[in-house]
């Protein structure tokens, strides 16, 4: 693969289609600037500021953009809130649609056949694989991202996190808790 990729890159560069220096900047951006810590800031803000939470649930694209996270694969955002009664989980059964602007690049399992096949049919089984056991009374809602809307799960604020600052709260927010396959860490 290494050689084939290099050959294609060289040819596209030679033909004036790509600038290798731009590729370096792109890779750096997705390794250092655009990842799940962005989403964690959004979640922590919503936990602390009721007005931001309302805005996020009404117009996620604008609310998220106000924190500086906008653009590619986050152009049309929807935030879905977990409550004691409802647990949300996100999948893309057709490919690998994922909210890059807030979560970065998707983990391999999110793009894998087993997750895409099972998440919609056996969500409790999938959650068990992730070590999450929900009460039988909690309804699970699975969002299959089949168009260009991208979903961010707003997890429940962990109990006992009252005295934490927004930044400390953000540290409790895991990537998986924003996909819905995990829960935030306990303080």
């Amino acid at each position, binding site marked *: *693969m*290494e050689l084939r*990729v*290099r050959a*294609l890159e060289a*040819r*596209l560069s030679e*033909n*004036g*289609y*790509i*600038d290798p220096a*731009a*590729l*370096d900047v*792109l*890779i750096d*951006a*997705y*390794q250092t600037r655009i*990842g*799940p810590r962005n989403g964690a800031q959004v979640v922590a803000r919503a936990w602390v500021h009721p007005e931001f939470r309302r805005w996020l649930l009404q117009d996620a694209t604008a609310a998220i953009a106000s924190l500086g996270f*906008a*653009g*590619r694969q986050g*152009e*049309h955002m929807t935030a879905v809130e977990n409550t004691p009664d409802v647990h949300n989980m996100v*999948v893309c*059964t*057709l*490919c*690998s649609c994922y909210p890059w*602007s807030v979560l*970065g690049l998707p*983990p*391999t*399992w999110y793009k*894998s*056949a*087993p*997750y*895409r*096949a099972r998440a*919609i*049919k056996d*969500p*409790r089984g999938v959650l068990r*694989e992730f070590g999450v056991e929900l009460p039988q009374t909690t*309804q*699970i*809602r*699975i*969002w*299959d*991202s*089949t*168009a*260009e*809307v991208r979903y961010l799960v707003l997890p429940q604020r962990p109990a006992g996190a009252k005295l934490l600052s927004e930044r400390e709260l953000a540290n409790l927010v*895991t990537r998986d808790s924003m996909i819905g396959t995990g829960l935030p860490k306990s303080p």
Partner: protein
Amino acid sequence: MTYRSHADLGGQDVPGAIVQEPEGESFHAPWEPRVMALVVAMVPTGMSNIDMNRSVRETLPNYRDLSYYEIWFAALEKLASQKGVLSDAPPPPKQVLRADTVLATIKKGSPTSRPASSLARFSVGDRVRTAAAPAEHHTRLPGYARGKVGVIDTVHGVHVFPDTNARGLGESPQWLYTVKFDARELWGENAQAPYSIVSVDAFEPYLEPA
């Protein structure tokens, strides 16, 4: 020729565990970030659109044997060669992504919403039935949600229609809805209690009143 997507996996029996991965572990081989960046950098060149890319990926005969970045690479190679981009006389690119415009380009993204030129046919709460027949081309209605009755949950406005855009037939923008289904409607007696709700984002041409 019959169109066959190998990517429509929802609800299928797929063996194997879901292998978890720590945060920040985006790549597993040195060529993977290059492929990601190549695919993103090719967007402004206008060689193809996202729906064409998805269509080429999902019809790769060995789709199920490839890793995700291998799929991206194989589709990129195929499209580039189909579009003459690798030839000695390539068509000129629309725009080339430069290092100093990368961050602004990412931030801008490529919104798919378009102005509405018609009224939405459905409103929140309406019962709808999805198209039953498999499409003979790229589509975004997954197989498990074909011929099912659901309820409109959200009206998202008008968006580029992948079914035409993937075939180079234009954007033909359509109303987009989130449609929710009860697990029992989707899986019948195989549905597992307590029943969950599954939703898909469906374009208006996929839907009829129920």
